[in-house]
C-alpha cells in the first residue's frame, strides 16, 4: 500500500546544528502514526518540513507516492497536508468561521461564511464535536481553540493531519476526548500523525509508532508488540560518558518546599502541590519533560512569582514565601536562570556592572549614594580570573559580547561570590558545548562539596543523572517519584514519560 505521506532522507541543520539527519518517516491512510521522542529529538522539525515551514537541506517528500515540493504552508495545503501547531494560528477577535474563511478564502465573505458554516456542521456531526462558531475564539477554552484548528485543517481539505503535541495543553479528560476524535478522523480515512512525548498515549491510541532521538529515527514499530522498557530505552537512549561523583557528606535540610501550588500568568495552574527537600552537601536534581511546572517552580523559589499556596523554608528560616528576591538572596539563595540573557545578565551593561549588581548594597562596593568603581573593577577582575571567564578584554566591556559559555560563567561567578547556602540552577548548561557544560558542572559540584545545597532543574536527563545525589521526577506540577543515587536510568525514564 502506498503511504499517504512519505519523507525520505530528510536532513536539516540550523547554523551548523544538525536538527535532522537522514530521517525516514511514512504514514498511511486510516492509521494514527505516533512520532515519539524527547524534547529536541527533532519531531517538530520533521513535521515542520512536511507542513512547509522548513525547507529541508536534503531529502524527498512523496504524497500518494508522487514526489512533491512543499515550499510553504500553501503548498502543503494544496497537497492536502494540514498541521495543528502547538501554538495555535488563530486571530483572537475573529470567530471560528472567520478564522477558517481566512485560511480558506471562498471569494465572497457572506457566501463563504455560509458554506463554511455548513461544512463545519457536517464535520462536527461526524466527529461528535461541539464548537461555538459565533464567539471570538480568544474567549474560548484552549480545547475549543484546538478543535477549531482541527476543523480549519479538515475544512481546508486536509487528508493528512499532523498534530504537534496536541495533548500538552489539555487536561486529562480533554486529552482523552481529543485522542478519541483523532481515532475517528483516522477511521474516516485520513492519515494522522500524532507528535508526542507521552508513552501512554502512544500505547493506547496509535497504530504504529516511530521513535526519534537526537535528530534520527531509532525505529518504527507496533506499539503493542514492543515492551514498555524497550520503548523507553529507545526514547532516552543510554550513552553515559562522564563518571558521577556522589556526595561525601550530607547535612541538615536547607530548602524545604511543602505542597507548593502556583499558576502561570494565563491562570493555568502549573504547580499542583510540589513537595521536596534539599539538604546541605547534596545536589537534588529535578528531572522532567519541559512544561511540567519547572519554570514556575524556579520563578516562585526565586521570589519573582507569588505561589497560590504552600510554604518554602530556606536556610533555617520558616516560610519565606512572602519575601522578595532580595531578602531571599540575603538569606543565601543564589540563582542561575535558564535564560541567562533575559534573567541572568543585562547585555548592554558592562561585565563589571553585571558582576557587581547583586552586591551593590552589601557595602563592598562603596555606599548606596556613591559607587566605588575601582573596587568593582578589581573584584570583577579577580572573579573573571577565578571562574575562568574567557574573552574579557576589560571589565568595562559589554556583557552581550561574551559567548554563551562565558556568559554563564560570569553569572555563576556573581552568584557564587557571596558563598551561597542554596544554589538554584535551572538548565545551567542549556546551549553550551561539552567543555563549557563540564566547567559549569564542576562549579556546581564544588559548591556542594563546600556544604551548599544545590537544586538542579534540568530537562536534560543525562545532566541530572551525572550530577544529582537524589532525583525527583516532575510530572504535571508535582514530584511524581524520587530516586536515590545510583539511579536506574530506565526507571526515571519511565516516570518521565508515563502519563497518568
Amino acid at each position, binding site marked *: 500500500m502506498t503511504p499517504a505521506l512519505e519523507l525520505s532522507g530528510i536532513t536539516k541543520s540550523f547554523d551548523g546544528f544538525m536538527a535532522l539527519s537522514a530521517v525516514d518517516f511514512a504514514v498511511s491512510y486510516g492509521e494514527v502514526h505516533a512520532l515519539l521522542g524527547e524534547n529536541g529529538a527533532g519531531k517538530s522539525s520533521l513535521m515542520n518540513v512536511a507542513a512547509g515551514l*522548513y525547507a529541508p537541506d536534503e531529502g524527498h517528500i512523496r504524497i500518494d507516492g508522487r514526489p512533491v515540493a512543499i515550499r510553504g504552508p500553501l503548498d502543503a495545503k494544496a497537497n492536502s497536508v494540514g498541521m495543528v501547531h502547538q501554538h495555535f494560528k488563530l*486571530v483572537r477577535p*475573529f470567530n471560528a468561521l472567520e478564522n477558517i474563511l481566512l485560511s480558506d478564502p471562498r471569494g465572497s*465573505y457572506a457566501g463563504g461564511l455560509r458554506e463554511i458554516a455548513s461544512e463545519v456542521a457536517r464535520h462536527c456531526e461526524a466527529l461528535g464535536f461541539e464548537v461555538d462558531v459565533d464567539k471570538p475564539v480568544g474567549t474560548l477554552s484552549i480545547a475549543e481553540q484546538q478543535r477549531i484548528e482541527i476543523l480549519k485543517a479538515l475544512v481546508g481539505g486536509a487528508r493528512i493531519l499532523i498534530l504537534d503535541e496536541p495533548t500538552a495543553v489539555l487536561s486529562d479528560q480533554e486529552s482523552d476526548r481529543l485522542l478519541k476524535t483523532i481515532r475517528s478522523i483516522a477511521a474516516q480515512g485520513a492519515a494522522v500523525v500524532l507528535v508526542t512525548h507521552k508513552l501512554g498515549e502512544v500505547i493506547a491510541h496509535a497504530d504504529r509508532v516511530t521513535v526519534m532521538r537526537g535528530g534520527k529515527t531509532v525505529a518504527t514499530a507496533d506499539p503493542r508488540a514492543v515492551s514498555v522498557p524497550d520503548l523507553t530505552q529507545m526514547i532516552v537512549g543510554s550513552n553515559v560518558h562522564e563518571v558521577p561523583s556522589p556526595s561525601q557528606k550530607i547535612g541538615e535540610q536547607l530548602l524545604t518546599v511543602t505542597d507548593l501550588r502556583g499558576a502561570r500568568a494565563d491562570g493555568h495552574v502549573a504547580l499542583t502541590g510540589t513537595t521536596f527537600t534539599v539538604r546541605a552537601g547534596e545536589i537534588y536534581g529535578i528531572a522532567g519533560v519541559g512544561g511540567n511546572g519547572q519554570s514556575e517552580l524556579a520563578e516562585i523559589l526565586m521570589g519573582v512569582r507569588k505561589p497560590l499556596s504552600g510554604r518554602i523554608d530556606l536556610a533555617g528560616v520558616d516560610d519565606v514565601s512572602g519575601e522578595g528576591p532580595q531578602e531571599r538572596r540575603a538569606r543565601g539563595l543564589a540563582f542561575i536562570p535558564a535564560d541567562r540573557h533575559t534573567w541572568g545578565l543585562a547585555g548592554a551593561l558592562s561585565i563589571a556592572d553585571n558582576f557587581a549588581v547583586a552586591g551593590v548594597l552589601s557595602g563592598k562596593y562603596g555606599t548606596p549614594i556613591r559607587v566605588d568603581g575601582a573596587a568593582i573593577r578589581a573584584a570583577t577582575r579577580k572573579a573573571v580570573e577565578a571562574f575562568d571567564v574567557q574573552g574579557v578584554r576589560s571589565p568595562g566591556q559589554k556583557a552581550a559580547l561574551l559567548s554563551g559559555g562565558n556568559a554563564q560563567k560570569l553569572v555563576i561567578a556573581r552568584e557564587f561570590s557571596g558563598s551561597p547556602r542554596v544554589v538554584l540552577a535551572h538548565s545551567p548548561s542549556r546551549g553550551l558545548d561539552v567543555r563549557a557544560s563540564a566547567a559549569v558542572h564542576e562549579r556546581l559540584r564544588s559548591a556542594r562539596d563546600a556544604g551548599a545545597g544545590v537544586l538542579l532543574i534540568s530537562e536534560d536527563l543525562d545532566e541530572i543523572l551525572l550530577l544529582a545525589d537524589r532525583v525527583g521526577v516532575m510530572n504535571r506540577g508535582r514530584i511524581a517519584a524520587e530516586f536515590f543515587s545510583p539511579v536506574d536510568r530506565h526507571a526515571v525514564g519511565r516516570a518521565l514519560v508515563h502519563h497518568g
Partner: protein
Amino acid sequence: MDFLVNWISNVPGFAVPFALAALGLILTEKSGVLSLGAEGFMLMGAMAGVGAVILTAQPELALLVAALAAAMVSMIFAVLVVILRVNQVIAGLAMVFLCQGLTSLIATLEGWTSRAIIGLAKLPIPGLADLPVVGRIVFQQDIVVYLTLPIFFAVQWFLTRTETGLKLRAVGENPEAADSAGINVSLYRTGAIAAGAALVGLAGGYLSVAVAKIWVDGMAGGRGWIAIALVIFARWHPWRALFGAVLFGAIEALIPRVAAVGIQVPQYFMLMTPYVATLLVMIWAAMRGNVRLDEPGALGRPHVREERR
C-alpha cells in the same frame, strides 16, 4: 435662531477634514501600522490641492490630486515601516517633519503661498436647498460633504463584509496567523498605508481648497494630531469616529460665530478650545476603561516572518 442655523450649517464643512482623516487612519491602523504621520499627509494634500487648482482651475480634480499626492508620499513611510521595519513611532514623526519642510519648500518655489484661489463651490440640491432651516443645514453643502457618508459606508462595508477586509484585519490582529494562511502581510500593510494616506490627503485638500481657499505653511494646524486622538477615542470604529469628528467640527464652527455676534472672548482662548477638547476626550477615553481591548492586536509591531530556512 439665526445664530443656531448659521452655526449648524457650518458644522459639516469643519467636521469633514476630521472625519476623513480619522477614517483614513482607522483603515491604516486596522492593518497593524501605527500611523503618526497624519499631520504630514494632511499638509501634503492641502498643498497639492492648492497647486492643482492654480494649475488647472478645477477644484474637484484638485481634491483627487491631493489624495494622490498624500498616497505617493506615504510610500516613503511604507518602505520605512513595512520593508525596513523601522520603529513606527519614529518613522511617523519623521514623516510629519519631512512633509512640513517639503510642502513649504515646494509652495515657496512655485509661488503658491498665500495666493487666494477659486475654492470648491457649494452644490445646492435643487428643490431641497430651499427648504426652511433643513435646506441650509443639509442641502447647501459641497460635493465632499455629500460624499463623506457614502465613503464611511463603503469603508465600513469593506472592513466587515468582504474577504479582503477580513484579511486586512487579520494582518493587523495576528500577522503570524495571517502569514500562515497565505496572506501577503507586507502587501496588505502597504495597501492600507496608501489607501489611508489618500483619505488623509483628501481631508487636507478639502481644508485648503474648500474651507480656507488658500495655502499657508503648516495650515493643517494640528488637525492630523486631533484625528489620531479621535481614532483612539473612537476605538477604531468608523461610526464613532464620525461622531467625534462632528463634535470637533461643531466646536471649530462655533469659534467664528461667537466672534461674529460680538461676544467678547479672548481670540486665543477660542482657538485653543479644539486642543483642550482633545485632551479632555483622551482623558475620558482613558477613564472609560481598557482602550487596548479594541486596539488592533499587532498595532505598531513590525512583522518579522518566521524563519523558513
